[in-house]
């Protein structure tokens, strides 16, 4: 049973002002209805005027996705009623979109894969609803129009994706591309929303509306694949319908059939003039995009494909890496891709909350063997916890010092260094292990190494411990 998925992705363009008025888009930390004017409030008599930057941004996307930009594109009104809508219609593009027929290459389930883009068009975001009341009190909505009029691009793919995982990979690649283009900020809450069309080959198509997170897309599709396959196995038919993704429960639920009957009565927006911007495309110089940067990371820093792909899969991560790569790009790649990312993920933190100089400092300590790898991780954890709590942190050096995690010396001539002392103690306390070792059970050494590490609270370098133990055990033989 083949799975067929197509996506419609809505992304907020990162302009300073809204699509059709001069209100600031920087509303997230402000109170409701503080970034509105007659235009985005839909006051009678107000008129839209198109933001040049939004057009330029959308064209950058179109070019990066290898789209064709038709000679003329037109804004239309999509007419429907809903309390979050300021004018009783949404200004969008319908039969004459900004760009058509492009593609984006992704790492698919079976290697490199080309996903076709049907169209890219511009539209305005509606307002935001807050639901009030409940079982015991009358229910109503609260409306905030700060979001109304934020510029969106809608990117529609052909049904070229074959699994929830591919859908997620497509989204990740698209997100990275948009961020590299400097037109989108994925860290802004609600800046991306996805509708997914999914079917099992030969069956009806189901639309899942309004998925608001990257992980949500894979979850919603995975749930839907299972639901549809189970239904088909039981001999049921898949109904063509719209479903909502309930993020908290990880399930999709059927939307009322009424929403299927929408008749949007599109017609050209009479208050806006057509766009003729096909000839702008040649003048757009695209920045380095994820694939190019991935190749450069391999060439310039000698990274493996896997590290290069991970580190270039997110603009901020790639920029962070380049800041900390320094004199030991391989060490930096391992630490960023294999350690830091996991620790950030665990704490639900973003790479932008880590000051590169702090991380570079940590790498220097590790590289100079001032702290061990293991204690390096411990220091990193403490620093991240501090950053998450206060937004700032102490220096890695001070942290290692404070926690007593600096690597211990193990090379004194008289044998009174901490590592040799700890090793002597360990041998004295574990005669059985010593005996086992001497009787040829070499794995007993691992136990003794562990004991020394415990006694030195990880501050001994593993190589030192091995050397000292071997030497002490040899002496006694």
């Amino acid at each position, binding site marked *: 049973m083949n799975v067929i998925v197509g996506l419609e992705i809505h992304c907020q363009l990162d302009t300073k002002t809204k699509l059709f*008025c001069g209100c600031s888009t920087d509303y997230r930390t402000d109170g*409701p209805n503080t970034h509105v004017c*007659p235009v985005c409030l839909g006051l009678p008599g107000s008129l839209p*005027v198109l933001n040049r930057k939004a057009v330029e941004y959308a064209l950058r996307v179109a070019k990066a996705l290898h789209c064709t930009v038709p000679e003329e594109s037109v804004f239309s009104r999509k007419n429907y009623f809903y*309390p979050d809508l300021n004018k009783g219609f949404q200004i969008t593009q319908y039969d004459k979109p900004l760009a058509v027929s492009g593609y984006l290459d992704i790492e698919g389930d079976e290697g490199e894969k080309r996903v076709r883009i049907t169209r890219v068009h511009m539209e305005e975001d509606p307002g935001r609803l807050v639901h009030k009341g409940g079982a015991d009190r009358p*229910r109503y*909505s*609260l409306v905030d129009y700060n979001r109304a009029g934020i510029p969106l691009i809608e990117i529609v793919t052909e049904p070229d994706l074959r699994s929830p995982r591919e859908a997620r990979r497509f989204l990740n690649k698209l997100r990275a591309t948009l961020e590299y283009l400097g037109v989108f900020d994925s860290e802004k809450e609600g800046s991306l929303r996805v509708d997914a069309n999914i079917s099992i080959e030969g069956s009806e198509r189901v639309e899942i509306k309004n998925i608001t997170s990257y992980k949500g897309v894979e979850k919603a599709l995975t749930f839907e694949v299972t639901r549809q396959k189970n239904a088909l196995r039981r001999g049921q038919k898949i109904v063509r319908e719209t479903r909502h993704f309930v993020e908290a429960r990880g399930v999709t639920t059927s939307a009322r059939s009424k929403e299927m009957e929408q008749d949007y009565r599109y017609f050209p927006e009479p208050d806006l003039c057509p766009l*003729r*911007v096909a000839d702008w495309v040649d003048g757009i110089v695209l920045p380095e995009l994820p694939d190019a940067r991935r190749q450069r990371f391999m060439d310039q820093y000698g990274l493996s494909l896997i590290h290069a792909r991970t580190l270039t899969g997110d603009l901020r991560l790639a920029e962070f890496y380049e800041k900390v790569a320094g004199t030991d790009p391989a060490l930096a790649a391992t630490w960023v891709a294999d350690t830091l990312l996991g620790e950030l993920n665990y704490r639900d933190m973003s790479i932008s909350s880590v000051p590169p100089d702090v991380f570079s400092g940590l790498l220097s300590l590790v590289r100079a063997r001032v702290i061990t790898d293991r204690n390096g991780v411990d220091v990193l954890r403490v620093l991240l916890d501090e950053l998450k709590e206060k937004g700032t942190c102490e220096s890695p050096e001070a942290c290692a010092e404070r926690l007593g995690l600096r690597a211990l010396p193990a090379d004194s001539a008289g044998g009174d260094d901490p590592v040799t002392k700890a090793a002597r103690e360990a041998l004295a306390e574990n005669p059985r292990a010593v005996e086992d070792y001497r009787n040829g059970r070499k794995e007993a050494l691992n136990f003794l190494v562990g004991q020394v590490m415990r006694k030195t609270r990880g501050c001994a370098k593993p190589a030192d411990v091995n050397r000292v133990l071997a030497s002490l055990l040899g002496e006694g033989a």
Partner: protein
Amino acid sequence: MITEKDVEHIGMLADIAILRGELEEFTASFNRILEYFDILDQVTGEEKDGGAAVNVLREDEVVPSLSPQDVLSNAKETEDGFFRAPRVM
């Protein structure tokens, strides 16, 4: 011919309730008017409009928004800076 049922459907699309007593008059006048519009059937040619201006754009520069008082001053139902609207769920 538009039927009363069609008119009710149109009312739903337009979000306008139609009272029982109004339905007949609306249906009758719709049919008379739409019949008059049938003269458009003889029109040939493209829909395309010959509007002159293209690419009318403004720069991405912030203009002050309305004051919160002005925003909410015309709404009868407000709460904590929000507009209050009927429930959707």
